[in-house]
Structure formats: structure tokens, C-alpha cells
């Protein structure tokens, strides 16, 4: 009996650990796939493609969170109350930032995260067995979005590391600016070939890139490269496609009514919820105080206010002033923000006002999260066409598109915003730039327009812009540190 117990105990204790010991030490990811097996089905391909769109709704995608592009321009100041983010966002207003400035790392990393998501589709989807047309559309959408991300990178920092695979080397030097533009143009070329027309898109696919989106972006990219022939061609392709038009009412171009409307060439869908499916872009700039619509950053400047032509209704449609009633909501403003600030001579330097382009009807912060940011709208395309045509010495054609924009702005009032008739190239160039400023104010275009046309030194020099330095942002210091010297800082930033 004793011997039996002994033998049993001994054999149980010895045998058990050997049985199934390989399985015992295998713990697979729970509730998650590994990258080796994704994407492998048509449904995976759709999920992966959708993910590339998610990044454009990321708060950091918007120049790292805060609207620093407008703040750096002459159209806007930091906003909020005087001390809110004074030391983080404040220095962008007068070009006092350094390579450790708040937000640079957020913007940089998020753009590359978007690029990685695009690369998943571009690199992995070709091997998936599925309908070829759908497959190419998905790849085209990813390439379009990859172009969006690189376009931000190249405009903000110049030549940056180029990543076109999901397994890039850890150490990667900066490519040249031209190489980055070359990749953008190649990607857009594929997108134009494979994306559907807006009219061929079902309503539940609105928000996905179309052929028109890619052509419009190509036109804009060409403008930044100084390739006016391409720019003219692509812009006219969009115009002649008949797929787009201006919203009859100017405020609908950015408003709720015009979401996914006729003027929307490419926009960022967002729902009225905080977090998850919402977009914090408009909340960041929403009216501060009463009604509490957000943080109140991006305050329209006095210079912008005074630059509008007499009677231009776009002034009122761009700036929310205190005391105004919008969609039945009275704007009272913020108790901690002075209504007016003056200089030594008693001139107004700033006043409490807000960016109306992000306005969503409502009186709490939540609806503001549903604002759909228009990345490309048809008015921009018309002005790109006008600019390119003027540069290509076709002023008469340029005037057609320029005046189309002014005509809509006029809103049927013949007393204001007369048609432009100027055909002198230099003068017309200035007029078009002014039109861009007023039509696209507070939508993140102005700073880059000033830089690409070489006007930045003259316009922004007095507030601290240094020619040869401030055209580009400094590469985030953390990236330079990590790269162990592989990444070289932009000129004059050390």
C-alpha cells in the first residue's frame, strides 16, 4: 500500500510537467491580430484603408493640435485668455519658438503615423486576393492620404526622411525637398488614375478621396513647387469635370449645411461627440466663456479685420464678435479675457473675437466636435486656377475664376466686391493673394501662402519672422536627439 502511494505520487509529479509543456508556455495576443496575418481578406483591406483616414481626424494632425499656422500668419493671434498657453503656443505668434517648442513633436509623429497606415495598404494590399478595381481604389486612397501627410511635412520642415514601407530602417537621413515632392506627385498620379469621380461615389462613401480631390491636391502641390503649368492643368481638370461648384451661401462652404456638399473637394468627417469619432479641431478654436464652445484659440487679428474690402460680407462670416447672435445663440464671451487690448497710443491691438469658420450651431462644447474641417474646397481650386493662369500669362482666363469667387461672396449685392478687371501680371498676383486671404481666412492657408510667394519677410518681418530661418519649422529636438546626429537641423535653428 505504502509503496503504491509512493509510486503514484512520484510518477504524477514527474510526468505532469513534461506533458504539454510546449503549449503551456505559448501565450498568444488576446483579442488582437498580429501584423503577419493582416490584412489578408477584402474586409481587412477595407479596415486598413479606413485607418488611414482616421489620422486626419487626430487632433495632432492639425499642426500638432493648436492652429499655429494661422497664429504665425498676420491673420491671427494666439487667442484664449491672455495667459492660457502663453508660454507654449504664445511664442509661435512672434517667432520666438525653439526646437523644443510645444506641438512640433506631436505633429511630426502623427504625420508619420498616418504615413505608416498608408504604407500598410500600399505595401500589403497588393498580395490580397480580391476584386482588382476595389483593391486599386483602396491603394489609391492610401496614396492620396500619404500625399496629404508628406505635403504637410515638406511644407513645415522641408526635406524629411522618406518612408514607403512598413519596415523602415531605424536610422534614416532626410531626403531632399525635391525627392519628397517627387513622391507626392507619383502618389497623386496613381490616385488620379484609380479614384472614382465624386458623382460615382455613393453617399455612404462621402469623405473618401475622389479623382477630383487628387487633382485639386496636385494643382495645389504644383503651386508650392512653382510648376504653374501643372497647376493650371490640374485645377482646370477639376473645374471642367463639372463635379463641383460653389455653395450659393458663403457660410455654408465651411458650415454644417455644406458638409459633403457641392463645394467640398476633400473634407474630414467628424461626429458630434467628445473624443472617439469627434474632431477637436473646432473645439480648440470655439467660443470661450458663454456660450462655452471651446478653448478660444486662434483670434482673428485687427490687420485681418481691416484688410477686407468695404462691405465684404465675408468679414462678418469669418469673425465672431461679442454681442453677435449666431443661429439664435448670443455670444457673450469669456470673463477672464479682456474685451479690448490697446497699445501705448490707445489703438486697439487685439479684441476678444473668435474664428467663425469653425462655428457649429449649439451652446455647449460637444456639438463643436462635429465640425467637418474642409481640407480642400472648390473656391480654393478656383483661386489656384486663377493664380496659375496669371503666372502662365493668361490673365483673362484668370479673371474668370477670380470673379467667380467674388461673385458668390457678393451674395447678390451689386454695390460691393466689383469684378476685377486688372490684367497686369504683378498687380493681379497681388489681388489674387488678397482674395485668397479673404476667401480662405482662418482656414490655415495664409502663412504658407506668404512663405511660398516670398512675401513672408515683408509682411511678418516686423513681428519677428527671419528670412532664411522661419520659412521652415525646426525639426523637433527629441527627433534630433534620438537620431544620434543623423537628422540635421534646419538652417539657423541651432
Amino acid at each position, binding site marked *: 500500500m505504502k509503496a503504491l502511494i509512493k509510486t503514484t505520487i512520484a510518477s504524477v509529479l514527474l510526468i505532469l510537467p513534461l506533458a504539454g509543456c510546449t503549449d503551456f*508556455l505559448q501565450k498568444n495576443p488576446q483579442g488582437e491580430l498580429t501584423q503577419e496575418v493582416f490584412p489578408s481578406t477584402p474586409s481587412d483591406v477595407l479596415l486598413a484603408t479606413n*485607418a488611414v483616414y482616421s489620422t486626419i481626424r487626430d487632433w495632432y494632425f492639425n499642426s500638432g493640435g493648436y492652429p499655429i499656422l494661422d497664429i504665425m500668419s498676420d491673420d491671427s493671434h494666439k487667442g484664449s485668455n491672455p495667459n492660457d498657453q*502663453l508660454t507654449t503656443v504664445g511664442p509661435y505668434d512672434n517667432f520666438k519658438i*525653439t526646437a523644443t517648442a510645444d506641438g512640433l513633436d506631436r505633429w511630426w509623429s502623427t504625420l508619420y503615423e498616418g504615413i505608416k497606415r498608408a504604407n500598410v495598404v500600399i505595401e500589403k494590399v497588393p498580395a490580397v486576393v480580391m476584386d482588382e478595381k476595389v483593391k486599386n481604389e483602396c491603394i489609391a486612397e492610401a496614396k492620396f492620404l500619404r500625399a496629404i501627410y508628406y505635403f504637410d511635412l515638406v511644407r513645415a520642415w522641408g526635406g*524629411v526622411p522618406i518612408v514607403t514601407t512598413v519596415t523602415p530602417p531605424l536610422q534614416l537621413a532626410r531626403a531632399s525637398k525635391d525627392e519628397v515632392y517627387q513622391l507626392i506627385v507619383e502618389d497623386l498620379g496613381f490616385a488620379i488614375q484609380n479614384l472614382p469621380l465624386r458623382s460615382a461615389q455613393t*453617399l455612404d462613401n462621402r469623405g473618401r478621396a475622389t479623382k477630383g480631390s487628387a487633382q485639386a491636391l496636385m494643382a495645389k502641390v504644383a503651386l508650392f513647387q512653382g510648376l504653374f503649368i501643372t497647376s493650371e492643368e490640374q485645377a482646370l481638370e477639376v473645374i471642367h469635370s463639372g463635379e463641383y461648384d460653389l455653395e450659393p451661401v458663403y457660410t455654408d462652404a465651411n458650415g454644417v449645411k455644406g458638409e*459633403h456638399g457641392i463645394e467640398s473637394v476633400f473634407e474630414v468627417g467628424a461626429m458630434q461627440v467628445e473624443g472617439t469619432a469627434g474632431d477637436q479641431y473646432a473645439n480648440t478654436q470655439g467660443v470661450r466663456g458663454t456660450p462655452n464652445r471651446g478653448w478660444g484659440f486662434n483670434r482673428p487679428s485687427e490687420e485681418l479685420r481691416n484688410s477686407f474690402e468695404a462691405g465684404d460680407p465675408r468679414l462678418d462670416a469669418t469673425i465672431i464678435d461679442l454681442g453677435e447672435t449666431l443661429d439664435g445663440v448670443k455670444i457673450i464671451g469669456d470673463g477672464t479675457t479682456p474685451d479690448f487690448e490697446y497699445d501705448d497710443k490707445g489703438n486697439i491691438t487685439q479684441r476678444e473675437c473668435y474664428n467663425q469658420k469653425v462655428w457649429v450651431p449649439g451652446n455647449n462644447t460637444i456639438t463643436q466636435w462635429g465640425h467637418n474641417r474642409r481640407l480642400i474646397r472648390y473656391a480654393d481650386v478656383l483661386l489656384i486656377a486663377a493664380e496659375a493662369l496669371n503666372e502662365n500669362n493668361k490673365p483673362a482666363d484668370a479673371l474668370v475664376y477670380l470673379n467667380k469667387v467674388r461673385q458668390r461672396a457678393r451674395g447678390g449685392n451689386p454695390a460691393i466686391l466689383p469684378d476685377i478687371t486688372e490684367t497686369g501680371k504683378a498687380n493681379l498676383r497681388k489681388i489674387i493673394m488678397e482674395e485668397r486671404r479673404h476667401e480662405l481666412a482662418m482656414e490655415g492657408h495664409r502663412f504658407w501662402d506668404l512663405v511660398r510667394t516670398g512675401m513672408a519677410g515683408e509682411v511678418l518681418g516686423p513681428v519677428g519672422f527671419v528670412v532664411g530661418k522661419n520659412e521652415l519649422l525646426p525639426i523637433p529636438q527629441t527627433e534630433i536627439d534620438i537620431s544620434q546626429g543623423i537628422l540635421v537641423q534646419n538652417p539657423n535653428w541651432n
Partner: protein
Amino acid sequence: MKLVKLKIIILLLLILTSGSYAFAQSIVITGKVRGSDTGESLPTASVAVKGTTHGAITDMNGEYRIEVKAGDAVLVFSFVGYETQEVVIGNRTKIDVVLKTKASSLEEVVVIGYGTVRKSDLTGAVSSVKAKDLTKITSVNPEQSLQGKVAGVQVTSTSGAPGASPVVRIRGVGTFNNSSPIYVVDGVILDNISFLNSGDIASMEVLKDASATAIYGSRGANGVIIVTTKTGVKGSDKPVFNFSSEFGIQNLSKKINLLNGREFAIITNEIVSGTYNNVDAVPNTDWQSLVFKPAPMHNSQFSISGTTAKTEYYLSFGLFQQDGIIDKSSYRRYTIKANNTYHLTDHLKFGNNFTLAPYQQQNAPNVTYSVYRAQPLLNPYYADGSYGVVYNVGNPLADLANSNNFASGVRGVGNIFGEYTFLDGFTLRSSYGMDASFGQSKSFTPAFTVFNPDGTASQQQNVLSDIYKGNSQNTSWLWENTLNYTKTFGKHSFNAVAGYTMQETKSESIGLSGENVIRNGSDFWYIGPSYIYDPANNVNTIQSISNGVDPNEYYSMLSYLFRVNYTLSDKYMFTATFRRDGSSKFAPANRFSNFPSVAAGWNIGRESFMEKLPIFSALKLRASWGIIGNEKISYFDRFARVQSDIVAVIGDPDAAIAAASYGKSGNPDLKWESTKQTDVGLEFGLFKNRLTGEFDFYNRVTDDILVELSTPGHMGNGLGQKIRYNAGSVLNRGFEMNINWRQEIGEFSYGVGILGSTVHNEVLSIGGASGVDSLLIGGYLGNGQAVTQSRVGLPIGAFYGYKTDGVFQTQAELDAYPHSSQAGVGDLRFVDTNGDGKLNALDRTYLGSSIPKFIYGFNFELSYKSFEFSADFQGQLGNKIFNGKEVVRPDPYNFEQHVFDRWTGPGTSNTEPRSSFGGYNYSISDKFLQDGSFMRLRNIMVTYTVPKALTKKLKLNELRVYLKGTNVYTLTKFTGYTPEIGSYDVLSNGIDYGTYPVTAVYSIGLNLSF
């Protein structure tokens, strides 16, 4: 004839009076055994005849009766905690002895992994803390008792919040990730012991060197703390009832010196002129007094222990209650403990150790930060009693009033074991242990608005009420099977143990959050469609759902272990240990690893030549070397995973649709981190062991550290996402000492103990061949600024930033020095450390370390008759604290008092810059680095034991009452609440983020047994 008669009578007597000693002449000896310390009798002391196995045990009155043979010459008296005494019988039949208390700990039995060993036979570095010292500190965490008690162990509070656990570091910081030791409670391996009541613990052993920890292989790299809980006292068949209760009051130990309303108004006017017309008319609110209030704590325990013929038992019930000094924070824990052993036969026993610990906790929001920041010239309430606006930070009182954050749960830890002894010296043991816990958390924030003075809504507003519910469950099992062989023949004694263990752990949680609960009362704190209705969208909203395993608590392990101890002539000891571990956290190719160690000891004190040096009562030299491992990483670090919680918004109207893509990359090549440790130790006893001491030198190098490194942004891993690599090595080298003096003079006795340890911590490499980050940035302040950099040649988590050398007094001075474009006259002067004539990020440099150069403790004990007094001091030297809470200033916050000595013109100050609400002067610099050295009166205690004469009348064994103070006094230059700033994240250590202050506690207690 007479002779024959006599012989027969003697024979008859012998037959009558002897049992096993039949047919041999024997005599009966009686007497009483007392203790020299109390003079009281010692029940259950052992009396044995030297050279035989024959013995007896004293009764409850300390009296014994033993029969001895004529040839027996010497009786040996022994009792736990007392020196063994040998008495020559001579022709006495009544022998009373007084046993001396043991001045030395050298003869203690010490618990090591999978066995016990006499302290004198130890070859490894092991420190022991016994029950008496474990209950000195009233805390929910037994680890707190180790602070200042064990050389080489640093225990640092992370927060004063009720129920918060401290950070424990043994011999420095050995890795960049989890550096905490493991705990082995009655054989069950655990990550923490927050479920244990200090009163249930018999001893805690800290295993420090490789020889001691190698038996735990991969688990032991950061040290092992073995916790042995109480069992029935052998030899007393009468049950012992014990009741203890303690009540204490916690207080904020000090206030931070902040500006008052008037001073803040003056500073504000200098920054924005004319903000306050009359600085003498502004209100002054002391936010610290409004938020921090004295709070009670209470700890009671009742236990029964004893033995019967075949069983030993210990049962206890405990209740610990603590309110926080911040409203809406509290902790309550019940503990139920049952330890039983059943001797089925002489060869077979079974037993169990179980603890069940239900707890309830309320967590306050971190208002410490907002109290520090709140402007002093704002009123907490308006005239109508509603909460006043506190710009930029929110009114902390309103935050507290609207906070309802609760956690509750139950944790059960225990094991059952069987032990079978067979043949000569073999013991087979099998133990199955479980750790299971269930937790629930809920929080509710009602919709509320704090208004501006003009009646408009301030930023402190919650538009819709929020509710969160979470559940978690964690189960872990550990099955251990060991075979032990002990044999002594002649001068040789062997002890060997071999075995294997299996462990599996899984923790899963589910969480739900929603908005807009229909009513505020707790009856409605549930998530269900009928309660959650969003009028803005006319839809029900569940904000988020989360469900998954805890990545750090999902793994399995299979281990084989072996150890042999060999002792020659009681003088020369050798130990060899080997463990082979397999972990699910690594890919099959790297799954198993071996962890060997060897050690030797020489009991010099037992050599015959030492007899010429009678001053030495003990002397021992020991040395060890070994490799131990670490695998405290997430189970999925090796996998490149797909992120599937991505949401895209597509369609007209906008619709949320599912999306998935590659998450951050994984590293399939991960393998074990390993630590090589060498230790040399010397133990000694002098003057009959009145003076005892222990010195240790150790050298610990950790290689292949499993470290998460930032990857370049172009990898697309997303902001702040890191990938784990085996890339880095760290050196910890130090010296430890522990010296105790103890003396008795009649009824007076006293003792003094001193302990100290040094740590030299240095990063030997980071990144290495992997081509990623060559430095680790850490200590993020939450505004993008990072305070620490771990670089080769510097300590882990070194403070890194600008050096300052004054304030720019004039424009001429500013122009003459390299300076940042943001600097102006009156601003801090940063040093151009690289001397390139420019001031930029490259001038940031090493400023100091949070790791102390010296950690020490000293304690006194005095006892006279019924009174006992003890005082424990503890401290550290040479570490720095970064005042992180002062630096993060996106908005105008209140300031510390020193800011008032600001620069206001040439010559006014060369240390405090001109007034500003933030920006340049608040860059990371040595301006905010403070000396973290401190000396703290950790515990002071007076105990009165009611005299035996009186307690006997009350039919009690013992009755003691005491008064004590914890954290009573701290000598430090640091300006924050406490210089103890701990963090689990080794890269963020020593940064004062404005956490819940650690308190001073005054308490009164009583302890009675019957």
C-alpha cells in the same frame, strides 16, 4: 544479604520510576526557567539532556520535570530568543535557571527559498525582520516596516493617499523597467503584499545576493522578500488569544510656503501692470488649510493560535481603516487568516495557509496640484455660498464635492501543501498556491458648473454627468514540487533540494463609461440605455467600452530548480544553486534560460585558533557569485500587433466606421535580462555578542536590459510609443553595514543599532547595436518637457537640464554672455556649458541624481521594568529632488514664497529672476533642483506592560499599552510636503509632481493576550 536486599529495592524503584530508562538508575530533576529580561517564567522552554534526544518542556508556569540517568552530566536549556545555557547537574535535584536574552542574531533560523537554514550556516546575504518590528509602523503595507531596518533596502512612499503602496528597491536600481522585488508569501510568489496584515506576519526575510536569490532564477534579479506568516506555537496546547487595537490621527506634516493674496497681487501687477488697483484690498485664501484636514486611522486584530496533539492552528481577523487628509479619500480592509497544519502520521503532514482580504477604497481627485496652483486672492465661495471660480486650475473644493470615485474588491491568497518524509532524510513536498482577486471600480461626476463672478460659466464645468464602471479579475496559480534530502555523517552535512514549479497568471478587465445619467443619486450609478440619454443628439450614448487582459499579468512559467548545501566541520560552507526557467513572454528560441550561482562561507569563529581571541564570540566570512534574471515585461512586447480600436468617420451623414492598422512594432528577438552579482560579507560578534555586525560589499551588473526605447518618429509608431529591446546595462555597486549593541544592567537594558548602505549607480550602455536611442528620456512633466536623461556614464534617471549662474543684471551683461533669444534683463543666466558661444539645447547637462549616495537608519531601545522606549531614525544623503510642480506653468498660478525675492532692478537679486507667469525662467534647470537629503524620526514609541502580578489577577497573559508617532519630525531642506518622492517608473524618480502628501501619524494602542 543486606546487599542483596538493597539491590532488589533499588531494582524495584527503578522499575517503578523509569519508562524508557528502565533498568538504568535515574533521578528526577525539577526547576523553573525564567527569562533574564523580564524575570518572568518561560513557558514552553526546552530542557534536554546533553548528548541524548531525551528532553522535556516547561509548563505554563515555566516549571519542568525531567528524569536523568546517573551518567547524565549536563542539562541544556533553550528557548527562542534566548541564549542556550548548559548546566552541570552535579548532585542537585532542583535546578532553576535564568536564560539570557540573545544579544546576537547569529543563531537565528532564517527562511530561505525552499528551506530554512541557521543564520550561522548562511552563505548568502539575507536580512531578517521579526514580528515585533513589523507592527511598529501602522500602515496598510507591511513593506513600510522594512524602511530603515534592513541595509540595502530603500522603501519610498509614492503618495499619502489611503491604501497607496510604497516603492521598494533592493540594492539600487537594477533595470530601466520594473525594479521592484518579488514577494514569496508562505511559498506563493506574488508581486505585492498589500493584502497582508502586518500582525499576521512572523518574519520577513530580504534575500539580497545572487546566492540567496538564484533559487528564484528569473524572478530574483531585483531581490526577493520572503514573508512567513504566523502559525500555531508548538508545545502550548492551551490556545493563546491575542487582541490588539490602535487608533491614530494623521496630520499634514508641513505646509508649503506659498505667496499670500497681497504678495500674489504685487507679482501679478509687475507682469501685467494695473491688474489689481489696491493690493492691500485683495482677499487671501489659504487653500492648503481648506483642503487638508486631520484624519483618523484605526487598526484592530484578533487572533487565536495553538496546537493540539496532531494539529497546529493560527486564525485571525483584522480590520484596517484609514481616512485621507483630503476629503473623499479612504481605505478599509478586512483580513481573515487561517494557517493550519495536520500531522496525519509521523511521516505525513498536510497544511494550508489562507488569507482573504476584502477592501473598499475611495479615491479623491488629485487636488494637491490645484491647491498648490490656486491663486490666493480668490475666494473659495461667493456670498451666496456657491463655489468661487479659480482661474486655470478649477476650484479644488468643487472638484472634491463632485468627486465620487470608488474601488472595492476582494483578494484571496493561499496554498495547500503536503509533506512526506521517507527513507533517511528525504522529504517530498508538493504545494499548490492560488492568488485570486476580483475588483470593481466606479466613478460618477454629476453635471456641474462653477460660475465666473459675472455669472457666465467658467471652464470648470461638466456639461453632462459622467459614469464609469470597471470590473477586473485576476487569477494566478503556482504548483511547486520539491524533493529535499538532508544527511549528516561525521563532519559532513548535506542538504539538497531539487524540484520543478509551474505558474500561470491571467488578469482580465472590462470597463464601460457613459454620459448623462438620469439622476445624480447613487441609486442611478448604473450603465443602461434607460439611464443614458443625450438630449443633444436624441440618442443613447455609451461613451466607451474596454475589455482585455492586463498585459503584465498574462503569462505562464515552467521552472526546474536545484540547490545543494554542504558543510564541513561546522566551519566551511558551500552552496551551489541552479535554476532553469521558461517563460511564455519570449519566443520559443529564447524561451529558456539558466541561472547558476555558487557561494562559500567560513565560520572563522569556530576555528580553534580563535580561542586565543576571546573578545570574538562569532566571526564569519562569506562570498557569492551568481546570475539571476528578469522578465517583468508585457506578454505581448515580442508581438507586432494590429491596432483595432481605430475609428474612421466616413459618409454623408457622417458615420463612425471600424478601422484597423498596424500598431507599434514588436520585437520577436526579446530574451531574458540577466544580472551578475558578486557579494562579499563579514559577520561578527564581539563581547559575548553584545556587539554584533555585518558588512557586505556587492557588485551588480545587469546586462541585456529589457528597455523600452523611443524610436524615431519616421517609424510611425506614434507619439510617445516605445518599443522594447534588450539594450542596456547598468552597474550597481555598494557597501552595506549593520551594527548593533545591546546590554543589560539589572532591570535596565538598552540597545543601539546603526545601518547604512551606499549605492553607486551607473548606466554602462543603452541602445547598443540595436541602433535606436542611445539615451532614455523620462520624467515627463505633462507639458512636453522631460526632466531626466539616462545616458552612459550617468545614473539611471539623471536630472538633465540647464545650469544657472545668476540673473542678468543689465543689458550690457546680457549682451556680453551667450544667451537664448528668449532671455532678457532680469532673467536667469544659463551656462554655455559646451563653450561654443551659443546657448541652445546642447548646453543642457547632468545636474544630479535622485538616487541617494547613502541611505541610513539608526534606532534606540531602552527598557526599564515595565517601560520600553524606542526611536527609529532613517534618512538619506546626496540625492536631488526636482520640483516638477513648480515648473509647469501654462497659466498664471500661485508661486512659492522664494519668488517674492525676485529681481526688480540691477543688484536686487542674483538668484530669483524677474516676475513671470512661466516661460523662459521655468525651463528645466538646476534652479528647481533641490537637495533631497533628509533625516526623519520615523517612529517613536513608549510602551507600558502591566506587571504580571496585576495581569494574572485579570487572568491575562499580557497587557501592553503604547503611544507612538510616525513620521514625527523630518530634517530637510526640501520645500515640498515630504522629501520621500517615489515612483515606480525608474526614469521619473525624485520628481515632485504634487502628489497626495505623506502624513505624520500619532497613535495610541493596546495589546492583550489571554
